[in-house]
């Protein structure tokens, strides 16, 4: 048994007030799939757990400029969304590979981001989709671009009394393809050894207008490979350019050695996965098929 008090406020205001009142002694518990194991081992010991389950949060809502993913959206709900499958397929692909069904049924996107594991699968597609995090605290709201959200392993910009209310994902340019690739040490229920998400958006002339590459498990936080993106954005996509971009992505990573893999292996995999992701997307554009 873990030792903490529990409260499930009925409104956002109430939640924010409680969160503010307890400061660092309280944590938000949504699916609990990261929080409870950590508390059981004594790695985290909040005195109060605040559950947003009664909040009237929107699930997955499509608006004019962007998609809103409420704080309570689970990975399973992402997988079930026709809208997300169509428009944000890399996010669906990433959620498909998180844990197993029981974990996906409970774990939330917001919780996964807040937990700030460098291996978080869903963070990568959200990064390449230029997602923003909308937070609330008693003083008001703010919007944090996801690529500024992480400060270090397990550390985010969130203040102690700040709550992720929703994730906003802008609409993508009409010609967009994305890929999510993950390497694990077995074929299910595996924390990533290295992972990559890639988005390429083209104009009508077939030139790359937006390139986004996000890397997971190879740095203290999920990171963007900005130099690699720049190489892609300013050059035609030849084999040589792809190779250069892959190498640049490799340099954006600063992996460590741990139980799952060595830093050297991870570093090599960044290049391999980035290259493959680029090749896959190029092939799709060439053949006109949609990536599944």
């Amino acid at each position, binding site marked *: *048994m873990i*030792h903490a*008090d529990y409260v499930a406020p009925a409104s956002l205001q109430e939640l924010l007030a409680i969160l503010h009142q307890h400061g660092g002694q309280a944590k938000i518990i949504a699916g609990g*799939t990261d929080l409870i194991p950590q508390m*059981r081992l004594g790695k985290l010991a909040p005195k109060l*757990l605040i*559950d947003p389950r009664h909040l009237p949060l929107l699930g997955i809502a499509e608006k004019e400029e962007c998609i809103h993913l409420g704080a309570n959206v689970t990975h399973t709900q992402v997988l079930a969304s026709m809208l997300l499958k169509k428009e944000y397929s890399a996010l669906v692909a990433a959620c498909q590979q998180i844990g197993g*069904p029981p974990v996906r049924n409970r774990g939330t996107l917001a919780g996964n981001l807040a937990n700030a594991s460098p291996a978080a699968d869903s963070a990568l597609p959200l990064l390449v989709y230029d997602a923003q995090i909308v937070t609330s605290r008693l003083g008001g709201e703010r919007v944090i671009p996801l690529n500024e959200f992480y400060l270090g392993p397990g550390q985010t910009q969130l203040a102690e009394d700040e709550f992720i209310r929703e994730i906003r994902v802008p609409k993508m340019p009409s010609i967009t393809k994305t890929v999510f690739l993950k390497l694990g040490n077995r074929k*299910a*229920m595996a924390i990533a050894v290295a992972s990559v998400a890639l988005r390429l958006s083209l104009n009508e002339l077939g030139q790359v207008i937006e390139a986004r590459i996000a890397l997971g498990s190879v740095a203290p936080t999920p990171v963007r490979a900005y130099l690699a993106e720049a190489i892609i954005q300013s050059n035609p996509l030849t084999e040589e350019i792809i190779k250069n971009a892959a190498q640049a992505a490799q340099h954006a990573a600063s992996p460590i050695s741990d139980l799952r893999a060595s830093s050297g292996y991870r570093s090599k995999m960044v290049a391999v996965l980035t290259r493959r992701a680029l090749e896959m997307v190029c092939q799709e554009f060439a053949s006109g098929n949609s990536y599944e």
Partner: protein
Amino acid sequence: MNEIEIHLAVNGIPRTIQSEPGCTLLEVLRDKLGLTGTKEGCGAGDCGACVVVMDGQAVNACLVLAAQAEGTQIITVEGLAQDGNLHPLQSYFAEKWALQCGFCTPGMLMSCYALLLNNPNPNPEEIRDAISGNLCRCGSYQSVVEAVLATVKFSQEARGG
């Protein structure tokens, strides 16, 4: 720590439980309700031995605080049989030897039950995905898949094809 009161339905029966807030649903089921069919294999959500169905979805009971189950409908392995008649999944698990030591079986059954609630005609790949969160060290995965396929076939025939 003060105890809190939780109201939930377990296997169709409304229950009111007094529990410490940090108690998990698994502890409530096993220790307070005496429903020991659901097992603890790891306590950390890694093995699936504690899977129950909550509001129609498979969840690891060790990762749900009892308080988070407030107002929910829980089905455990003890709730599958009706009036002493085994659910077809249970009969086919036995028939196909989809169990050896049986410790993973309750969680495995509930993952399969949840699958069939949401997908009445799964293919083998989908079944494997549904049980990917249930570890079986005895290695009964293939027999579990066959038991689910047999259940589906039986249900289709029972409904007249």
